[in-house]
């Protein structure tokens, strides 16, 4: 995205920890994101199949043997990077919150 301003994707405020081990919170967060993207991918395949069915002219072999050219590869690369970003955002936010809290603690001393 080339926008000059990039509004935050995360909300300001404390993110509550649900499980004893914060890793479990992180796994859940990633798991829901994966489920979302899986649903998106499923709908895309479904769209493709329906278009193929009605507009035909394309064989299963053509799909099997398909080789992405350079620009397609680049697009897919970009898409994977975005997926990774979606998946990993909770971990990044977690890290940033920890760092921010550590900084606050060292600013104000213990007892904050």
């Amino acid at each position, binding site marked *: 995205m080339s926008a000059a301003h990039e*509004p935050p994707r995360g909300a300001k405020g404390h993110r509550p920890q649900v499980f004893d081990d914060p890793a479990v919170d992180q796994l859940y967060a990633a798991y829901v994101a994966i489920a979302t993207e899986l649903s998106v991918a499923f709908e895309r395949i479904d769209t493709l199949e329906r278009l193929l069915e009605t507009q035909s002219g394309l064989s299963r072999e053509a799909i099997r043997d398909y080789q992405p050219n350079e620009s397609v590869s680049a697009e897919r690369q970009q898409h994977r990077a975005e997926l990774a970003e979606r998946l990993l955002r909770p971990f990044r936010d977690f890290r940033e919150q920890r760092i921010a809290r550590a900084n606050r603690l060292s600013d104000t001393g213990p007892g904050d």
Partner: protein
Amino acid sequence: MPAFKQHPMVPQTTHDEQARQDFVSALRGHLSGRLMPGAYQVYAARVEPAFRSKHGRGPKDEHEVRHAMTEDPYYQFWSAMQRRSQELLWESVIDPTERQLPELIDRARTLGKRGRGKRRGTLRLDPKLVVPKYHTAADIHLQPGGYHTDFTADDVAAGAVYDKGINLYMGGALGEENNLTGDTLLAYVREKHPSLKPRSILDLGCAIGNSTVVWARAFPKARVHGIDVGAPVLRYAHARAQAMGVAVDFSQQNAERTDFADGSFDLVLSHIVLHETSKSALTRVLAECRRLLKPGGLMLHLEIPRGRTDIEKFMHNWESYNNNETFSRYMTDLDLKAETIKAGFAADAVLVDEFAPKLDVAQMNYTEHFLWKILAAFKR
């Protein structure tokens, strides 16, 4: 469920963006309708009995319920999923909004100029307005930047994101124009005060004007004002109302103290606003409502039910602890009637009511058995 109605200020979605929003909506429907009720079952079957055998008595208040429930794996599972679905909800509407933001800002400018005379709404912003701390401390229900943050000049993103976002939030149950809150309070007025014919109406905390427009349509002869602290939601509200051909005067003001003259309105309203303020703000808003009403005028605030039993209170307060609805939990046991009397209304002119509108659409799992709370008071 009626589909969300497109209007010129709604960002278009690509195939994948739409699929993402649809999934979030489905997930939330499932979490609210199928998984959340299970938390009550788990409480009755496991958590409460375990507490009882450990302490020789049941939990004595909501806080003891909280301590017991937050240890329960089922509740934990639901809570983690619910929180995550809320985050993904905003993400799914921010993407298409950002992609089209320059066009949306242009469109808002053009729509702002449409119409003339009485048929044209107005927008008055106040760049000097201090946004209250209860908005800036944390982003309410996790919308990044809240209602008030401008990320670019003439920003309307917060409005566009909120419009689509709250529709997904309730899986479409808010109605095709997010009109459920306005319709509910209007239905209350039609039932309890059928002869009311207000000539001047003020909607406090109007956000994108979704409820304001309902009132302007219901009383076409009335002058209708909407105020909010958030500039980007108001720009969007103005453009949206203009696109719908409904004349509303929007202005950026704090409901705790507005610049309208004493006795300006027959009807002063708010829809799901009070729980997003603070204790001291609430007192000031009620006093301000009284100042703004004409003698004989009516004040109405629609609020979300907060539960009767301790487990219900605990479940309702999930939003407070996990969704940055920070103040809402303090409203659980707040005596709204006493607060209203404190603000100067006569004791026998105040009523805290409950109301369930007859729903003409299948409002799914969200508003079934949903008793809205309504604070009503006349000014003598």
